[in-house]
């Protein structure tokens, strides 16, 4: 399973000028940038070799399709229809005829080529500014053939970063809970997939109830809640090796786990005698610290990215509200003061915002507020939705949404959705089964 960790060899190709086009991501993008993704060119020998290894007829075209779909899903780009392309991929990669690309209204162009090199997949790509007629970026990398989809994601990340000025979020994975069966006897399994829904894999068999998996921001470890032997406890799972171990083995239920930003601690709730408080456990020396001590329910803790603060959910005021405290549990301050109930605070990886779920007048909202509670903004309203998780660049939220059910159980579904921080570009994230509790990984490569 070292495949994921296998190094991508990067080479900067000679770069000639710098950029003129830019994509503004700070507001909802109603005019996505028209971009042409020319299929990566491939020589016949390489094509045949990869067809044998990967069972894909033209791996160059497949990789560029990954890039195209990513760009489209971001909502910031409008990949143009390939039928309109006038120039052949191999010639375009050498020197695009900018008039041709201008003619179809492309403002940016991606070209590249693929070949086999010592049994490995070698890809180079270039990003061009069509209007200025200039090369903006050129990169090449080599990896094992099986990593071909990741090559597409990394190209997207590089293009996104070059054009928006912010890191991408495409070479990432989502861990979530797969759901099947009737609502009253739901079978739940841990599942993982690439950010675009490819390579879906189930990690547990469904013999016991599992909930709320969350990625370690620094590794491929996951923490989650399992009802193994009917004892709800917090577990650790190494996604690469499949190794599992219980970490919250307290005399009662442990739940709502999350990693600290350095990945060294788990923060979670422990419920005993009708009272839930927040604890941390150091994964190295297993030292447990009690962080809150209050007769109310304290749960859903989430660290700030600098590790200095913790946002959490408490009903100490009588109803569910969001609070922030220092990581030692001192200085507790309520930050949600709008109408309704607030839950599931999650600190943005950029540090400036907290995403939350809100219930008001029978509707559920996903929203964001500043870390002092000001500037509340609701992004989406629905019958039921909760559990936002941030993309590693803090631009997109993924969450789950459930539909209304009649008393025969008809009409129920649970699906993953994503939405841009601006409130635009809401989209269904397709999963093979119903799905809930998504958690977004960090970038796999940097």
């Amino acid at each position, binding site marked *: 399973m070292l495949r994921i960790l296998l190094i991508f060899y990067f080479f900067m190709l000679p770069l000639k000028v710098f950029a003129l086009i830019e994509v503004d991501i700070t507001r909802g993008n109603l005019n996505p940038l028209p971009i042409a993704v020319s299929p990566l060119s491939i020589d016949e020998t390489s094509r045949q070799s990869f067809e044998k290894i990967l069972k894909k007829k033209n791996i160059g075209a497949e990789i560029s399709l990954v890039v195209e779909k990513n760009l489209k899903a971001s909502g910031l780009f409008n990949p143009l229809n390939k039928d309109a392309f006038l120039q052949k991929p191999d010639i375009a990669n050498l020197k695009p005829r900018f008039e041709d690309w201008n003619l179809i209204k492309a403002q940016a162009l991606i070209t590249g080529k693929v070949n086999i090199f010592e049994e490995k997949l070698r890809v180079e790509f270039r990003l061009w500014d069509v209007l200025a007629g200039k090369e903006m970026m050129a990169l090449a990398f080599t990896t094992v053939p099986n990593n071909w989809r990741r090559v597409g994601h990394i190209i997207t990340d590089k293009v996104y970063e070059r054009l928006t000025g912010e890191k991408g979020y495409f070479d990432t994975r989502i861990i979530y809970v797969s759901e099947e069966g009737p609502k009253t006897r739901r079978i739940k399994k841990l599942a993982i997939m690439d950010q675009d829904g490819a390579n879906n894999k189930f990690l547990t068999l469904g013999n016991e109830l599992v909930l709320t998996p969350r990625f370690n921001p620094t590794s491929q470890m996951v923490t989650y809640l399992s009802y193994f032997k009917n004892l709800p406890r917090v577990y650790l799972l190494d996604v690469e090796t499949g190794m599992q171990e219980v970490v919250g083995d307290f005399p009662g239920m442990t739940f709502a786990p999350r990693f600290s930003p350095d990945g060294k601690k788990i923060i979670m709730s422990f419920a005993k005698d009708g*009272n839930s408080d927040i604890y941390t456990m150091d994964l190295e020396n297993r030292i447990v610290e009690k962080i809150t001590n209050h007769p109310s*329910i304290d749960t859903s803790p989430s660290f700030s990215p600098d590790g200095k603060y913790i946002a959490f959910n408490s009903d100490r005021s009588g109803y569910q509200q969001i609070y922030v405290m220092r990581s030692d549990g001192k200085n507790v301050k309520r930050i949600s003061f709008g109408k309704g109930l607030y839950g599931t605070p999650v600190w943005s990886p950029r540090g400036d915002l907290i995403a939350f779920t809100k219930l008001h007048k029978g509707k559920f909202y996903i929203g964001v507020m500043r870390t002092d509670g000001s500037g509340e903004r609701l992004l989406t309203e629905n019958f039921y939705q909760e559990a936002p998780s941030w993309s590693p660049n803090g631009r997109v939220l993924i969450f789950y949404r459930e539909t209304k059910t009649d008393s025969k159980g008809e009409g129920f579904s649970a699906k993953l959705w994503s939405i841009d921080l601006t409130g635009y570009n809401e989209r269904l994230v397709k999963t093979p089964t119903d799905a809930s509790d998504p958690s977004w990984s960090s970038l796999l490569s940097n």
Partner: protein
Amino acid sequence: MKLNKILKNVFLVTVACIMLSACATSKKTTGQMQGDVYTGKDTVEYLASGVPDRVFFATNESVLTTASRETLRKQAAWLRKNSKINIVLEGHADERGTREYNLALGERRANAAKDYLMTYGISSNRISVLSYGKERPVDSGSNPLAWSKNRRSVSVKAN
């Protein structure tokens, strides 16, 4: 002066009682619900003849109603007679709340039932608590009646 104060307090308490009972009686009783607490028998199973297995709660609440306390007293009497039987109290919430808060709420509800059984002489050694949050509804409907059936603590024989 002192008497005056006592009288005043008595008066206030009386007023409060009247107001509370007024509130209680003015709560809508619609078929199988009082306020939003389930009062019907649809989902109820029996530990023994005349001993219902579950109690119901208002939204976001873990306070035992009069009916719940009566049910739990019957359970306690039955448990005293059957001293070899242990039970698991399974606490549940409806689907209208966030998953993690509901896990905590289910635990709080089951413990409310546990505490009451203990005051009626049942040893805590015989009672374990298991919260399912909103994971195991009995009624899959998305309507107030279904939700009221799902906000519950169920006593299940453990052996």
